[in-house]
């Protein structure tokens, strides 16, 4: 037994976890030293979040050992984990939508300190200080439910950083963040490390991973397949370990000059969100839209699909005006929308995977008197699940049992099965691993080859550059710039920041 003094901060051995037959983790072991940042890498569904939940005491392992500072931990609960200094930024944020920003940030601290009475001043002060440390400005009294996703993520980060921690676990903390916030966060991680705090970092953005972590652990199908110092890994090698193969993203093929005009947006405006938006989309074109947080991209995307009612302007598809502010009219005109927040906006979590896809294609399988051709519907849905290579135990399983990336494909499958004319993808690869991401990019390319117009909204600059023919840059609700696809990444980053 090593003496407690030189025992690693956290050590795991043989950790195994199964969910009703599905093995999420099998015999995983590694350790994290104080002041060290370890990256946990792996494809969607490889077991990263599960491992984190076990460390945080949220889920119980089936077998294996975990020790904090040499002390074996049995029956870990969220409270004992927090007391031991383990703080977690959950992939789904785990915030309280009905409480204010201040309270969300301060709650765990109050709980951890064992106060019985709450002191609002104390809570506010802590929240304010933490927000300042991260250099973000969010109204302390706003209810979290009213915040955009990115702000929610920032609040979740603040909550974990608010109090003294020995290990901070971050499960994809940057999915909704743009370059600037990511940079700030990475800066904070460096400072934390310097203070002796350990970090367990999960991200599909491999560049970030390699930038900030000393050590890399790679999971595949719930098993540890590689481990070593970050210096020994590059993106390609990491990708190979994660997926078991090489993944290469090809640049988009050139758009044929005679591509027909598919969609024309003119003078679209909504007070406080976006203004004077004009653009055309041609058949087979992939159009990227990028911008900083709050630049109005999401509002614009929702407006295209009728979920936001614009004040003025017009959207025409195939030369016909689309009624604004009506998702049904938009869908009918052939516009599809894959939302950014798949858990609340995209999925019917407790329904089967099949139904989640099938709901998009009811009309096509309708028979007389509203009766469905169920066999056809399910065959169709199954076919799309296959085409998008959704990894699922059974197609009748609840969609919530899938990993994030597979869930995203389910939403995609739903829209693709409707054969839309224009597909608006808001963050198509948010929380999706490199392997799946490349496949989704492949799908996008394939779609455009079939003449579909695709609008991709993303913060992921390489993604935009490899998939899009053109990229629009938004700032303060206006389109300020336009670039061709295949431009250098640095160029796009500069234009975004300017």
């Amino acid at each position, binding site marked *: 037994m090593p003496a407690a003094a030189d025992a690693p901060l956290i050590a795991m051995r043989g950790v195994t976890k199964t969910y009703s037959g599905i093995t999420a983790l099998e015999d995983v072991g590694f350790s994290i030293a104080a002041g060290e940042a370890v990256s946990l890498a792996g494809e969607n569904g490889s077991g990263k979040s599960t491992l984190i939940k076990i460390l*945080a005491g*949220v889920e119980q392992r089936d077998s294996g050992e975990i020790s904090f500072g040499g002390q074996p931990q049995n029956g870990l*609960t*969220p*409270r004992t*984990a*927090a007391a031991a200094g383990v703080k*977690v930024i*959950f992939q789904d*944020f*785990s*915030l*309280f*939508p*009905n*409480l204010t920003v201040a*309270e969300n940030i301060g*709650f*765990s601290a*109050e*709980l*951890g300190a064992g*106060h*019985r*009475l*709450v002191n609002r001043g104390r809570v506010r002060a802590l929240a304010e200080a933490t927000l300042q440390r991260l250099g973000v400005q969010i109204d302390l009294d706003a209810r979290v439910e009213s915040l955009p996703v990115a702000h929610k993520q920032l609040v979740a980060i603040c*909550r974990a950083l608010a109090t003294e921690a020995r290990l901070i676990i971050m499960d994809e903390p940057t999915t909704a963040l743009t370059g600037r916030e990511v940079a700030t966060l990475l800066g904070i991680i460096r400072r934390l490390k310097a203070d002796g705090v350990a970090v367990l970092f999960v991200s599909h953005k491999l560049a970030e991973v390699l930038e900030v972590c000393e050590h890399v652990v790679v999971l595949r199908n719930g098993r540890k397949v590689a481990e070593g110092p970050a210096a020994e890994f590059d993106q390609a090698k990491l990708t190979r370990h994660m997926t078991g193969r090489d993944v290469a993203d090809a640049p988009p093929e050139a758009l044929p000059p005679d591509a027909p005009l598919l969609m024309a947006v003119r003078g679209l405006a*909504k007070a406080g*969100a976006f203004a004077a938006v004009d653009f055309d989309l041609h058949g087979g074109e992939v159009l990227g839209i990028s911008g900083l947080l709050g630049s109005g991209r999401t*509002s614009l995307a*929702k*407006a295209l699909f009728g*979920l*936001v*009612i614009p004040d003025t302007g017009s959207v025409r598809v195939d030369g016909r005006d689309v009624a604004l502010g009506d998702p049904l009219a938009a869908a009918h005109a052939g516009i599809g929308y894959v939302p950014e927040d798949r858990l609340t906006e995209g999925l019917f979590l407790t329904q089967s995977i099949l139904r989640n896809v099938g709901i998009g294609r009811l009309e096509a399988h309708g028979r007389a008197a509203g009766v469905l051709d169920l066999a056809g519907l399910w065959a169709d849905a199954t076919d799309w699940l296959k085409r998008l290579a959704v990894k699922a135990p059974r197609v009748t399983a609840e969609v919530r049992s899938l990993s994030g990336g597979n869930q995203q494909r389910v939403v995609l499958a739903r829209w693709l099965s409707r054969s839309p004319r224009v597909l608006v993808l808001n963050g198509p690869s948010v929380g999706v691993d490199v392997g799946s991401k490349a496949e989704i990019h492949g799908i996008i390319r394939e779609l455009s080859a079939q003449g579909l117009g695709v609008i991709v909204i993303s913060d992921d600059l390489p993604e935009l550059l490899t998939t899009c023919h053109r990229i629009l840059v938004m700032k303060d609700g206006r389109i300020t710039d336009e670039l061709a696809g295949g431009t250098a990444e640095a160029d796009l980053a500069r234009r975004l920041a300017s």
Partner: protein
Amino acid sequence: MKRLDFSRNETLVALVILGFCALATISDPSFLSMPTLTDLLRGGIVLGIFAVAAMVVLVSGGIDVSFTAIAAFAMYSTTLILVSLAPGLPWPLAFALSVGIGAALGAINGIFIAFFGLPTLIVTLGTLSIFRGFLLTFVGSKLISNLPQSMRDFSKQMLFRGTNADGSFFSLPLAFLALVGVVVLTWFILNRTLLGRSIFAIGGSVESARRIGVNVRAVQFFIYVYVGALAGLAGIIHASMARVANPFDLVGLELSVIAAVVLGGARLTGGVGTLTGTLLGVTLIVLVRNSLIVIGIPSTWQSVAIGVLILVGTGLPAWQAKRAAARAG
């Protein structure tokens, strides 16, 4: 002064109340009088305590329909115990007994909900039948109009009395203080203690609360015990003021109480609710129930009138919220 916030339920319900009072005053100028006020305050005591209890549950993301059965059970068995075993027990002890019985029954709800993890609506729908069935089968179904002296005494204690021009009295019973006490205590728990904030947190997201280490079971258990205790208090006050312990009473009120709470802005989805709103909701319901004759609505149309007011009272804020949501996208 902040400007009136028309997107808040509280403001809208307050406006509906004012409108209704104006209407009542126009049709009968003597509407604005002390007897009206004391009658309404008195009518709001039991409903108010119930509503506060229902609000706490709604905030936690649950729903409780069994509190009326708990109240009837606690009230009736306390009276029975007093009458048959301890006729001389002073009223504070009798009240404590009823509160205790209520808390014990609430604990049964709490066990099913917190420890077995069953859905709140279903558990309380079940215990509603169980408590009522047990009471009427095994405890008794005869009403007791010979209340023990201590309860009679309590019902005759007044905070103040006054005499109208025609020589009749108006008065506000001591029991009103119980409502005030319950409101203050609940306000303190909900807003000033970590327990209270945990109730809100659970209402926002149980899973998130669990993940940051809130002892969800303990909090839920507390909620249902607390609600049971409040129901026990409301029950014994009801019996004392009505000067009869009728085991058939109270059950059937639960949906109106929940309606009052939701009128006041509490969300059925949990996490949101205020005491101000709850009291305004109760005020509206009591006001409407007690003023239809004054306005001159014929008996045959009175339930239509109440229905319309519930719809207007909830419809305005709901419509407002929906428009705001549509504007924001």
